[in-house]
């Protein structure tokens, strides 16, 4: 904060901001030239587009244009970071509310077939001002706790708007309304796949990484094999695993009873597990290799056994690097779990691929948007945790 203010006083008054110029240009195009909402008579037909002033009641429509204009001018001029951020956030919140308002305004009363969805203008405005927020946030460089609170506030706001029914008129929520039960079942399966395979990879990968760190000969061959697995495309690995798991289910007694089958959750789980192993093992090796020799020597001097040294010296020092692997794996698994739907493994991919099959794009969004939000939230949370762990470590060193 303090750095930001000093930087601002050094700036010349009425100078233009380059990023702000891009944001302002995007905002002008998004608000005035591109359509704000799409209206469809039913969920499959081609839609007709509506500009802001057609999609919203006059007061709200011109109010939004005025707000966007003010925020664009603030972005264009070199204004203090906090002001830029506040104005951009105001536009984003207004956009979210007005998308719902446009849906209510455009849908004829008692018409269950009509679909209203945000159009390109909405997305361009959202992108432009999100870019401004991202820039301001990067420059303000808040600590991990503030970032987590910011994320929690955004999620709470979105959750509140969902709960209050602000977006109930939008097509994506109409798709949700007609399959609310399956949505939560698939959400659960998606999380089980992503988190379960991560947990399994951590349980297997950590000891394997420690072993690779201690035994030189093992390291190259294990990492080589895991690297090769990483280059197999996900869709193929999912498919290839159908064969061995089908064989196990058919010939190993009891395997089928605990849910191992050729298609479904089992091959998806195993595939995600195999993809997760490389980052976990590789980062464990890198983390342990980065432990200062002096720390190890001191521990040996204190008469610690190998196990004590591992648990009290090496592992805590390597922890931030291992946590980085967990971040990579989690974000990657949340994305890859969508592919499980192709082999009957469930998850948000079910909606994505069903939607693609029916050319119903709202259904695609119902699967894609939660996946992106989950991956994004997971990345922010784990980045904050990594930073906290790393700063703990450096404080511990200084003490």
């Amino acid at each position: 904060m303090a750095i930001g203010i000093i930087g601002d006083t050094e700036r010349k008054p009425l100078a233009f901001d380059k990023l702000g110029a891009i944001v302002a240009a995007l905002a002008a195009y998004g608000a005035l030239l591109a359509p704000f909402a799409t209206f469809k008579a039913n969920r499959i037909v081609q839609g007709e587009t509506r500009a802001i002033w057609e999609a919203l009641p006059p007061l709200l429509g011109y109010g939004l244009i005025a707000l966007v204009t003010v925020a664009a001018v603030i972005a264009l001029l070199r204004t203090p970071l906090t002001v830029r951020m506040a104005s951009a956030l105001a536009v984003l919140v207004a956009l979210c509310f007005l998308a719902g308002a446009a849906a209510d305004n455009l849908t004829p009363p008692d018409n269950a077939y009509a679909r209203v969805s945000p159009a390109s203008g909405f997305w361009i405005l959202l992108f432009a001002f999100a870019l401004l927020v991202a820039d301001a946030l990067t420059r303000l460089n808040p600590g991990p706790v503030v970032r987590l609170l910011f994320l929690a506030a955004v999620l709470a706001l979105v959750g509140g708007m969902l709960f209050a029914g602000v977006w109930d008129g939008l097509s994506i929520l109409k798709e949700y309304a007609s399959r609310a039960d399956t949505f939560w079942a698939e959400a659960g399966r998606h999380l089980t796949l992503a988190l379960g395979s991560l947990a399994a990879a951590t349980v297997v990968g950590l000891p394997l990484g420690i072993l690779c760190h201690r035994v030189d000969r093992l390291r190259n061959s294990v990492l080589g094999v895991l690297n090769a697995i990483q280059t197999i495309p996900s869709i193929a690995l999912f498919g290839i695993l159908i064969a061995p798991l089908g064989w196990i289910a058919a010939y190993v007694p009891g395997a089928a009873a605990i849910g191992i089958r050729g298609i479904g959750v089992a091959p998806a789980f195993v595939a995600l597990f195999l993809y997760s192993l490389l980052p976990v093992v590789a980062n464990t090796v890198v983390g342990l290799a980065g432990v200062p020799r002096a720390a190890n020597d001191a521990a040996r001097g204190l008469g610690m056994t190998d196990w004590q040294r591992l648990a009290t010296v090496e592992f805590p020092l390597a922890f931030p690097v291992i946590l980085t692997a967990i971040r990579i794996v989690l974000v990657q698994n949340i994305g890859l779990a969508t592919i499980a739907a192709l082999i009957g493994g469930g998850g948000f991919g079910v909606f994505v691929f069903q939607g693609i099959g029916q050319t119903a794009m709202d259904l695609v969004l119902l699967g894609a948007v939660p996946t992106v939000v989950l991956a994004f939230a997971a990345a922010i949370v784990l980045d904050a945790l990594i930073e906290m762990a790393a700063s703990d470590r450096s404080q511990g060193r200084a003490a």
Partner: protein
Amino acid sequence: MASLSNLARLSVLLLLLVFLLQPIWFEPLLRPLVQANAPAIYNRGSLFWLTILHLRTVFIATVAATVVAVSLAILVTRKAGAEFLPVSRSLVNIGQTFPPVAVLALAVPIFGFGEKPTLIALFLYGLLPIFENALTGLTTLPPAVMEAARGAGMTERQQLFKIELPLALPVILTGIRLSVVISLATATIGSTVAAKTLGEVIIAGLQSNNLAFVLQGGLIVAVLAVLIHDALQGLERALSSRAHV
């Protein structure tokens, strides 16, 4: 040792070519995987042709992504574009959390079905690793070298083309390699939106419960990925060892 692994690579490549051109020779190997009357070799198109189309899609997307990503990285590391450096870094971090399937799925409503959304998704997703590595390469040049270049009276343009880009090249190539491997895999998913890639073989296998199709489609892509990954890695090693002389 090195020649032995080169020999192994060469024989894998030959095996792949033979399989693509004369898949029928391998029929007895795949026959046990399918039911009595089902075909064991993909019969709805030529495997060789699909492989070419698959590689073409990946190639076009990667070339476009490389040109755009490297230009952007050069832009934000110049004085005129320095204002964009922080935000471009966070954009790359944010962009990488987007799952490839989601990028593909979101491209469909805008670009329709077929090759186009696949190309767009591969292009967008391919940008990130290349941009990130180009940025790393261009911002972590040894200060002494840059000092010497300036001292020798080089213009900014000369510095860029004679010093910065050649030194950053191995790191940029690593980014391109990551991008190609991701694209090879993601292109298979493109077949769910009717793009002509090897994913077609895998998906046909998944739909008709034909394990032989899944296996041959998957293995071709995997072998392609491993071979291309290896070749690019070899190129990087050659370049970086030259750079260190």
